[in-house]
């Protein structure tokens, strides 16, 4: 593993304030006993206390340890040490590994072996597995039944009455769904509480979602009639996670994969990163990364980068969720994202996607020759005189990049609105 670049360090930071604090510490002054080898970077940082903080970083499988009490992860000390190391200002290789770093590395190695052994030693017990599956299905069946009853109650008493309910009422329903191992549904219900109180078209929104939830319950009950892909979509919508180990074993598609664009969101509890990538045969796959508040998300991939990596796909209809199954090597930077569609074609794609899987709400689109209109929250216009509204769009940035000229824009089509993620201008792929 080579030396990290400063960008890699910056991307490892949990938030910008940690990074700012780290930059203040990123000078050799407070550091002593620094060093690095192929796997580790370590050093001691003099803080306000008497004993310096001991910082160790595993740079191969990124892991951080610091004796400071910060709950940020990695903390400013680890980031500062990495910054110094990345700039080549400290922690040069050659020194003998410091005791505290060695101890930590050994502990980690031991833990890893134990875990490995446990996984290897415990072959899946098919009987116990089947038993667990039956129990889970029973629990989910009961949960879905309960939810269907709640839905019928909801429409019997009327949506207007539901609007008068406090947030806690929705939260109680969501909590019951979580107990029944239906976290995906629970998330949607919890989100509905704020939508109902915040949207002007709340009645339509709630009505359509109630219908969607109803259809989802029905689909679950009739799961025996679904194709494996359709069933996988239902599972994903209900929040039944597919173990990544199961995906690892499936067929991997070779690269090069083109990064179309990425979106990061942070709802206060969870950070999410969606990265859309396109394979050589045109297959589009979305990579999902999650991290709890205050933790670092996986490093984002640069839009327009061509990556040499193999990708396995989760079960489900297209566009499927994917995961990297090998090391990622950036090959090149593309000068375009290929040929896209007109707005009408994009909407046809959305129709087709809804028909394939009504639970999906987001499809990737590459729009060709669109111009940005800054009216309201922004619009995209295509040469045929059609327009689509934008959502979450950095309008100033889009205008600055395109200058009011037509450009290719990649984004997510969601509820008839486009969330722009990438712009292609002057033969370069840029994130607005």
């Amino acid at each position: 593993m080579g030396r990290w670049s400063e960008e890699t360090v910056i991307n490892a930071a949990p938030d910008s304030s940690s990074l700012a604090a780290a930059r203040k510490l990123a000078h050799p002054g407070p550091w002593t006993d620094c060093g690095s080898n192929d796997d580790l970077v370590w050093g001691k940082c003099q803080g306000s206390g008497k004993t310096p903080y001991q910082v160790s970083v595993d740079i191969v499988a990124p892991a951080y340890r610091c004796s400071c009490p910060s709950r940020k992860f990695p903390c400013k000390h680890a980031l500062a040490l990495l910054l110094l190391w990345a700039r080549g200002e400290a922690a040069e290789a050659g020194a003998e590994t410091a005791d505290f770093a060695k101890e930590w590395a050994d502990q980690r190695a031991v833990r890893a072996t134990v875990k490995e052994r446990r996984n290897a030693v415990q072959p899946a017990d098919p009987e116990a597995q089947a038993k667990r599956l039956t129990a889970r299905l029973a629990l989910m069946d009961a949960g879905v039944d309960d939810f269907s009853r709640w839905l019928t109650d909801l429409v019997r008493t009327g949506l207007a009455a539901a609007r008068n309910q406090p947030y806690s009422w929705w939260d109680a329903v969501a909590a019951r769904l979580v107990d029944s191992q239906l976290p995906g549904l629970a998330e949607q219900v919890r989100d509905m509480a704020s939508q109902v109180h915040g949207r002007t078209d709340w009645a339509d929104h709630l009505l359509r979602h109630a219908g969607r939830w109803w259809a989802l319950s029905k689909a679950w009950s009739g799961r025996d009639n679904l194709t494996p892909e359709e069933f996988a979509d239902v599972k994903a919508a209900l929040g039944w996670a597919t173990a990544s180990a199961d995906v690892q074993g499936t067929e991997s598609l070779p690269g090069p994969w083109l990064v179309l664009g990425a979106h990061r969101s942070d709802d206060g509890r969870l950070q999410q990163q969606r990265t859309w990538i396109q394979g050589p045969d045109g297959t589009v796959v979305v990579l999902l990364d999650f991290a709890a508040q205050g933790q670092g998300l996986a490093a984002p991939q640069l839009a327009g980068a061509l990556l040499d990596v193999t990708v396995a796909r989760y079960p489900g209809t297209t566009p499927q969720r994917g995961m990297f199954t090998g090391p990622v090597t950036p090959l090149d930077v593309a000068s375009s994202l290929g040929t896209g569609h007109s707005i009408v074609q994009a909407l046809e794609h959305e129709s087709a996607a809804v028909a394939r899987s009504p639970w999906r709400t987001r499809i990737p689109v590459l729009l060709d020759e669109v111009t940005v209109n800054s009216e309201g929250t922004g619009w995209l216009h295509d040469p045929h005189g059609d327009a689509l509204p934008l959502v979450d769009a950095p309008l100033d940035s889009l205008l600055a990049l395109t200058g009011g000229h037509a450009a290719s824009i990649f984004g997510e089509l969601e509820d008839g609105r486009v969330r722009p993620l990438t712009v292609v201008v002057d033969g370069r792929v840029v994130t607005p």
Partner: protein
Amino acid sequence: MMWLAELRTAALVGTGRHDAPQPPAELGFQAPDGLSREESLLDQAALADIVTRATRTASAASSAGFPSPAPADAVPQASGEAARLLELLLTQAPVGPGLRTQLVVDWLTLAEEARRRVPHRLLPALLTLAETQSIVFRRMEPAIGTRGRWMQEIKGQPSQEPATQSTGLRGSDAAAGYGPLRGRDPAATRIQLSECWTSLSARERAGNLALFAGNLHDNDEALLEKALDDKAKGVRDVALRLLDQLPGSARAARMAARLKPLLQLKGLLSKRLEIDLPPDPDKEALRDGVPADPRKGEPDRMARLEAIVRGAPLDVWTSVTGRNRPATVALLQDEPRVLNAMIAATAARNDVEWARALLGVLTDRRLLDCLPPDERAHWLERHVRESSDEPLTLAPLLQDLPQPWSVPLAEAVLTVISGKDGGRLAVILSEGLPTALPPEVTERCRQLLAQTDKDASRRRVLRDAVQYQSFKQSLTEAFR
């Protein structure tokens, strides 16, 4: 669609009170038999969801809010390291906000010299910064390029900075343009203003007259004399302040006539200058700005003397004493209020000779500003090095000097700062110090920083200075 509206109504009030509608036949939807009202409504809600999402159509493009495309940029964009540094400054500046602003200004200046422009993707952040930092706003041209100007147009920003102070009057078309005109053609302004003098309000007369301060000329005297008879006190005050700047005026001569009888050399060797207090002002004296007696209490007779000293030519003093300026000033050492009035007169007339003489006995920022830049820097440097005053007294002298300082001055100031009690001076100067210190003394700052020092704020100021210089160095190299 009627069906959707009915469905919504039924859902809002609830199936307990309202029956679910029938789905339209053209959708080909066949509901199974024996459904309850609730199930029927939920089935149709699911159908409505799918139908809405699957049948979306594009909106017709409206032309409102549509900008005409930006013309192409003629200047190549800054690339590589230069672009990266600007991005760093704009998005996650490694320095404090004050330094950040200064470094962005430096970047823009260097870009102009290298004939490079701001990369398009960084324009929004730069324009946002310029909204709050007027110095960035003023320096944005020409580095923002065609695209930047286009962005400003779209965002409806003025391409010229809004005037921070209202110059002259508002509302009157005749005088609205005097500010710039006075700068170009003082005589024309004077003539115009005299012509419409009577038609202007008191506030307008005062405001426009005040514009003369920058480039007052002896020819303006007639108008000022006229203004002394103005019925508005505000106008008279402005005229008096301006007449203080004209030692050759008739009013100055009148003041000289009032001052002379008050001054007498005493002592065997004429080594003592006695100053009498002026008598109660007559009508003429009141017109010339000698303060009237207050309605209550003792009259401030010293204030009368000060007004006379400020208005009279300074040469009255040398003619009375028969000595040169420094010797005359030496006689006045025990008269702080008189000296203060003389400083005011010197500053108003920008009198270099008197400034030099007065600086011999006391230190004042107003006097320093009268000296030519080189002499001022030299004087300051010597003063900073030799003065045994409290370091804090240097702060007003050093603030707002042209930057960067000369190397000797910077070194002298660093010596004071690093000395005892220098920390507080460092804090007061912290805003401008990093930019004021020339690159030659950066090494010295580094050495000072390496010394153990408990004064955290002093360390911060020095660190800022080092950071600024090293960042600026990177900028210079990036544009090479």
